[in-house]
């Protein structure tokens, strides 16, 4: 049978950066095609070429046997190509229906937006794919999982969706939401759509796809049917070597005092609902405390409260022996706090500023990059280049805007900056979200090293495997409460999983 999509000898560079060296890719009709590869391998760029966001420098695109040009996103839509981008693109203040038809609203009298028709069509789509969304709800009121579905709805609002591109759609989803999404993907495939599925979670790639392509350094280097492929095989193809996830060794001997402790910390939302309910915990220097739990159970609030970005209504927060409950974020950082936030584009960096500034910000004094408040560009750029090398951050030098880097490389910028502070307490939320397994392994190793240097680490993650392999003790957040803290020796995936879903110690 004729393939749905053929990409032949695609090439693309941005200025001096070669994003895609040479890629060939063939996708069958009604199939799910997984695309895997390291951060910066060129996955998003390739998909953006298909979606009409970028023009390729070279190569041809053939859809259902016809050679096509895709000069802009509208052309992609006309060809039946929908894309869900790696980062959210919805307008929060608009409803799901409005977002779905943004820029191509059904018109009345050729001028006015036909709101009723728009709602009806959005509702019909929602019905057809079983997304269970309220199309009149503003996007701002939706959970992350619902937003993701709204994004897909938007991508599918075409006359004939032939190709759906999902760029890391599960990175921010809870396991249940992710399963739900995979179900939707299979339904779409059975309906005849070809799905391009990008993910760093190889388990998912294997579970959902029919074929898999691995991209490395802008070249497609492996094509195979998924049946029979193992995670390890794909990982080796991606990284070019064996990936050995680091494991926490024996629990450290905790002698020193200090670190972080919370006593009955409570955070109340404006409506009076408790977001954090009497949280008591402590992390000693050299220790890693993992906080597991399904996203949305107070993880964000816990991180923000410890970072000094969210006022607490009751309780006490001690940092390195000092009460910091009322201290500013700055004061806490001065006392040795490092913070890797859950969403890099929200609190982690400024995409418009150069990489060097993103790396150096907040470190000018500590790393002696400035004198009397005046920045030494030489020192700053040397500092930045050093971090880029040590953390293997790719995608252009210290001078390029951080926003042009691939998602995983942006994450590495945040990690590099916060570790460069040599923090006494490291507050880490979802540190490996959206980064490839090689880089994930690297970040994990960095966290273990930091703990080895007597840094106290509070690791908040919705990846259970991440928590299980790194933490000395594991607590579970459920509905804003901390249910039980378990020693790693006694922690199994089943036990923690049960605590996560029932909210009771097991």
């Amino acid at each position: 049978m004729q393939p749905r999509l053929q990409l032949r000898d695609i090439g693309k560079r941005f200025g001096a950066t070669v994003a895609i060296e040479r890629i060939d890719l063939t996708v069958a009709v009604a199939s799910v095609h997984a695309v895997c590869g390291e951060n910066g391998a060129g996955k998003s760029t390739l998909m953006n070429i298909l979606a009409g966001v970028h023009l390729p420098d070279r190569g041809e695109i053939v859809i259902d046997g016809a050679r096509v040009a895709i000069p802009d996103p509208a052309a992609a839509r006309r060809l039946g190509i929908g894309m869900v981008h790696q980062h959210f693109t919805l307008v929060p203040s608009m409803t799901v229906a409005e977002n779905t038809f943004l820029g191509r609203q059904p018109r009345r009298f050729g001028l006015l937006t036909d709101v009723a028709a728009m709602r009806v069509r959005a509702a019909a789509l929602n019905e057809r794919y079983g997304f269970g969304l309220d199309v009149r709800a503003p996007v701002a009121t939706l959970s992350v999982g619902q937003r993701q579905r709204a994004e897909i709805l938007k991508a599918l609002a075409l006359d004939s969706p032939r190709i759906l591109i999902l760029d890391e759609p599960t990175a921010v989803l809870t396991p249940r939401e992710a399963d739900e999404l995979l179900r939707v993907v299979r339904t779409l495939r059975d309906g005849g759509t070809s799905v391009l599925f990008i993910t760093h979670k190889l388990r998912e790639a294997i579970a959902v796809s029919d074929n898999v392509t691995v991209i490395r350094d802008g070249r497609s280097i492996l094509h195979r049917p998924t049946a029979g492929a193992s995670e390890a095989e794909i990982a080796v193809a991606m990284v070019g070597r064996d990936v050995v996830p680091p494991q926490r060794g024996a629990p450290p001997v905790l002698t020193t005092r200090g670190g972080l402790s919370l006593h009955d910390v409570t955070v109340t939302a404006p409506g009076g609902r408790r977001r954090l309910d009497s949280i008591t915990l402590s992390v000693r220097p050299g220790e890693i405390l993992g906080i597991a739990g399904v996203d949305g159970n107070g993880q964000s609030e816990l991180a923000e409260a410890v970072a000094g970005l969210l006022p607490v209504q009751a309780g006490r927060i001690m940092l390195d022996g000092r009460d910091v409950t009322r201290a500013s974020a700055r004061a806490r950082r001065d006392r040795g706090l490092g913070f890797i936030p859950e969403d890099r584009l929200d609190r982690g960096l400024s995409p418009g500023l150069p990489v060097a500034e993103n790396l150096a910000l907040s470190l000018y004094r500590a790393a002696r990059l400035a004198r009397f408040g005046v920045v030494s560009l030489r020192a700053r750029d040397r500092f930045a280049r050093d971090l880029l090398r040590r953390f293997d951050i790719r995608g252009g030098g210290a001078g390029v805007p951080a926003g042009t880097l691939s998602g995983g490389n942006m994450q590495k910028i945040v990690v590099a900056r916060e570790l460069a502070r040599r923090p006494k307490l490291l507050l880490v939320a979802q540190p490996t979200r959206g980064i490839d397994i090689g880089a994930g392994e690297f970040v994990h190793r960095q966290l273990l090293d930091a703990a080895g240097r007597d840094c106290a680490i509070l690791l908040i993650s919705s990846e259970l495997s991440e928590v299980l392999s790194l933490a000395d003790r594991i607590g579970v957040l459920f509905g804003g409460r901390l249910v039980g803290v378990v020693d790693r020796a006694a922690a199994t995936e089943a036990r923690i999983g049960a605590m996560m879903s029932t909210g009771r110690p097991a």
Partner: protein
Amino acid sequence: MTGLWTAIRGPAGALLAALLLGFLVVLAVSDDPLLSYRQLLFASFASGANFALYLNRAMPLILIGLGVALSFRAGLFNVGGEGQLYAGAIACAAVGIGLPHLPAPLLPLAAVIASALAGAAWAWWPGALKLWLGVDEVVTTLMGNFVALLATNFLVTGVLRDPAAYGATSRLLPASSWLPAIPGLPNATIGLPVAVLLAVLGWVVLFRTVWGAGLRAAGSNLRFAEAVGIRARRDVLSAMALSGALAGLAGGLYVLGIGHRFEQNFSPGFGLMALTVALLARLHPLGLIATSLIFALLLNGAAYMQIATDVPRSLVDVLTGLLVLLMTVEPGRRFRRAVTS
């Protein structure tokens, strides 16, 4: 070097294109288009007096534009330069007229400080409302323009009015408060060199200091800046006040150096033009010196053009409009890149 070229080729191209298109307009309306354009572009250099006038007109553009750059970089859109200019000018006049017995070096100093403070205050409250209550600063600073204009009208037709003068102007400030002229150019005040110096200083502060780095971070992503421990809100509000202080200072220097009194409606729209000037310079303090000099040239040249030919000075508005239009071609391209990561 190539960096500089890529930075200026956009604005330079837009400027050339606007002048060319403007020439087509002049061709259509004028009997002597060449003379019109010669007046527009070169009359400012025809005599020392013309040249001095030209430099005087550039001063407020640089200072207000610098304020615009500062506030925009900090993430607040201060479009109230005109109002802050008036606030500074009236405060300066009030001090000059109210404290005539202050000894010579102190009087202009006090007047200058008063003008900066008045401008700062007039920018501070919209900034504070924005940061504390989320009130849109574009609306408040814009409204502030009208309030300042009317309030100064009220003062200059009332308590500050010079009864001997024909128009609505304040009494003359004591000569001990007047600014000296640029050596060799009797009618050009030292306002312009001061403005240029401040622009250079502004560049250093924005791009070479820790404070400036934090400010730009806060301006591009406030939540990020807060998370890394920058006192973002405080810094942004300071930047807003500073932005107003610069516009107010422009008003003060104008009164002390050029008018020597407060005149009703003295500004030919410096505030709005400074906005264009700053955006054209991509909010860069050094580029802003250049764009201000270019705009002042057009502004000044248009007056001579109107006298010498049949083309009205409002041609400047046409040119400004064309420029804004041509400059907005670029950001569209940028947006596509932003969606990709």
